[in-house]
């Protein structure tokens, strides 16, 4: 096939074109979540419309359920959950309910069940829908009106996007993870570098990643402003999907896998924009500011606005003031109060393993509160089967239930005002993890290492014993 993978999938899913020039892009799978669906269901009622394909539609309950809940708590007190359940009952939509074996964060559960497969399309009323692009899926994060639109029509009415490739060149230093690669890429491309574009991630460093790391990469496409991100499927993808309960089975699996192997950008495909991230020898990355492009290497110092280009100075100064940091401070001297491992960025099994490897035999530093929440109940079961829960608990972590938790600071799952938190999440925005909370984004390994020392610490340094 010709063109970029994104263009191929776009034309494959175009069911029509409206008079206003918007293409109707069919959504093969649609997972709603409870902060949006109640209003969209209410609008369907008002307009007398139905969910066109309830059989292709699912409901996640992830944003408004506490991960600190006692086992057996079904989130019955959340008005969002009550309203979402009622809408699903009325319109015939399957719920991944709290307490179900398939419960979890929408973007974690979809791939894990094999619901989202290469070459398919996916919509979710959450900007991190792009996570699923890691499987070679055309994935769109949408608002409430667009959610209602997909409910009623099974298509999105979209203006064509431009294409962009982020190419990772070279081999990073040992211990560098997917999170480090994507933080670096955002710092290179900028928080709005991908606006109006669909980003394809490529290069040897991407091919070397497992499926879960690739999801971490695509998860943060939105943090460079891109509408979506994707990675061409390969044998890693196909192996990872094999045997997943909702993936195609038998004869369908064989014909699907044959087709998946053909899904790639043609060698002569042209991208509207290209960003090269030189990661030869790159060290692990940590954010110092209040947008995900404000990132430096863990051995570096907090940058000085005086050295920055004029357009950046003011935002840097504002970020430093919110973060209560002085230019020139080595990152390794910044003390932290909180630690969070979780969210759709880094809460899959390999993320928890990465953190547990660092934590084994260590304790969380005095005065630091540490929380880890698996991204789904499946991840929780798998982690417990491997004894990871014990590693976390023995180190002094709180081992929570699956959901969004401290990523968005909902349901009281927030840090205390003014706390400094090192977190595996995707947004270091002001007040994101609670009023006045200062967030540093990092990989699970680095978050775990920082928990042990009580300061921002790279896992490599901790494990090397210095």
């Amino acid at each position, binding site marked *: 096939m010709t063109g970029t993978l994104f263009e191929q999938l776009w034309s494959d899913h175009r069911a*029509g074109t409206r*008079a206003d020039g918007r293409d*109707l892009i069919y959504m093969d799978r649609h997972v709603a979540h409870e902060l949006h669906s109640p209003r969209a269901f209410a609008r369907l009622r008002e307009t007398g419309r139905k969910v066109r394909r309830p059989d292709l539609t699912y409901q996640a309950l992830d944003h408004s359920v506490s991960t600190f809940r006692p086992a057996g708590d079904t989130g019955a007190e959340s008005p969002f959950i009550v309203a979402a359940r009622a809408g699903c009952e009325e319109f015939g939509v399957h719920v991944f309910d709290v307490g179900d074996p398939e419960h979890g964060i929408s973007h974690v559960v979809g791939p894990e069940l094999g619901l989202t497969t290469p070459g398919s399309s996916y919509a979710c009323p959450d900007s991190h829908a792009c996570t699923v692009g890691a499987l070679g899926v055309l994935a769109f994060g949408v*608002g409430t009106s667009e959610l209602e639109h997909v409910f*009623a029509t099974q298509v999105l009415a979209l203006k064509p996007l431009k294409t962009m490739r982020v190419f990772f060149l070279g081999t990073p230093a040992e211990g560098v993870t997917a999170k480090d690669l994507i933080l670096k890429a955002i710092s290179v491309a900028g928080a*709005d570098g991908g606006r109006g574009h669909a980003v394809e991630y490529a290069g040897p460093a991407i091919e070397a990643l497992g499926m879960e790391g690739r999801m971490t990469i695509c998860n943060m496409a939105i943090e460079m*402003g891109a509408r979506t991100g994707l990675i061409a499927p390969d044998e890693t993808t196909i192996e990872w999907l094999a045997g997943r309960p909702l993936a195609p089975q038998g004869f369908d699996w064989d*014909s699907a896998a044959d087709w998946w192997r053909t899904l790639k950008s043609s060698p002569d495909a042209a991208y509207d924009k290209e960003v090269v991230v030189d990661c030869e020898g790159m060290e692990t990355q940590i954010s110092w500011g209040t947008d995900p492009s404000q990132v430096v290497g863990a051995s570096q110092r907090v940058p000085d606005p005086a050295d920055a280009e004029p357009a950046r100075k003011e935002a840097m100064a504002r970020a430093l003031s919110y973060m209560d940091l002085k230019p020139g401070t080595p990152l390794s001297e910044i003390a932290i109060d909180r630690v969070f491992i979780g969210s759709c960025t880094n809460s899959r099994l390999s993320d928890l393993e990465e953190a547990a490897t660092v934590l084994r035999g260590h304790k969380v530093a005095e005065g630091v509160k540490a929380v880890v929440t698996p991204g789904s109940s499946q991840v929780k079961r798998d982690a417990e089967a491997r004894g990871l829960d014990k590693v976390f608990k023995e180190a002094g972590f709180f081992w929570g239930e699956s959901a969004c938790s401290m990523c968005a600071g909902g349901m009281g799952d927030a840090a205390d005002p003014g706390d400094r938190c090192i977190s595996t999440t995707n947004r270091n925005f002001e007040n994101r993890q609670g009023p006045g909370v200062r967030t540093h984004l990092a990989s699970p390994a680095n978050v775990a290492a920082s928990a042990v020392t009580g300061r921002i610490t790279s896992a490599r340094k901790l494990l090397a014993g210095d």
Partner: protein
Amino acid sequence: MKVFTRLTGMAAPLLQNDVNTDQISPVAGHGVDTDYSNTLFYRQRYDSDDNEIADFVLNLPQFKAAQILITGDNFGCGSSRESAVWSLAGYGIRCVIALSFADIFRENCLRNGVLPVVLPADQHRALALKVAEIDGAEPFTADLEAQKIVTPDKLEFPFDIAAAERDSLLRGLDDIGVSLEHEDEIAAWEHSMAERRPWLQTAARPR
């Protein structure tokens, strides 16, 4: 959808880049039936005891009733929450002027009768200076029919918007209704996909 034709009101400056939707509409202020008239920029407008923060632009007396906001680059980045647009509209701001908008936020504006205006850098700078100079003393006009922003002293700043988007805002079109006119094509696509890749048209249910 609410029609947008022409709006005359005070213009307030929030000249920052990358204003995200967490700022515009913090999640802690959300309920299923939230009235979004008072949730806009909640954490910047109010301190932790819910007292007004005096120097935030929308708390300055001359901008309390602002209906137009001028801001910087990449406005509305971050979360896809549509409440960011609802809280702007709920507050009374139905026109935002920026150097650029984040993609999902802009889509949400178009579906809620809020006009996103993008100006080129030189025009944007000139208008921002004008907004600062007028300082809420007199109203500006956002005229979608004529595609221009008009200052109190009658300076005009023309802007581009796709004809279809302009038309949709002017008529307050029901976007879903427009797509549903293509129901036959959608059904035909489903039929063809059921043949070509049957696993995509039949999603299994867990358990």
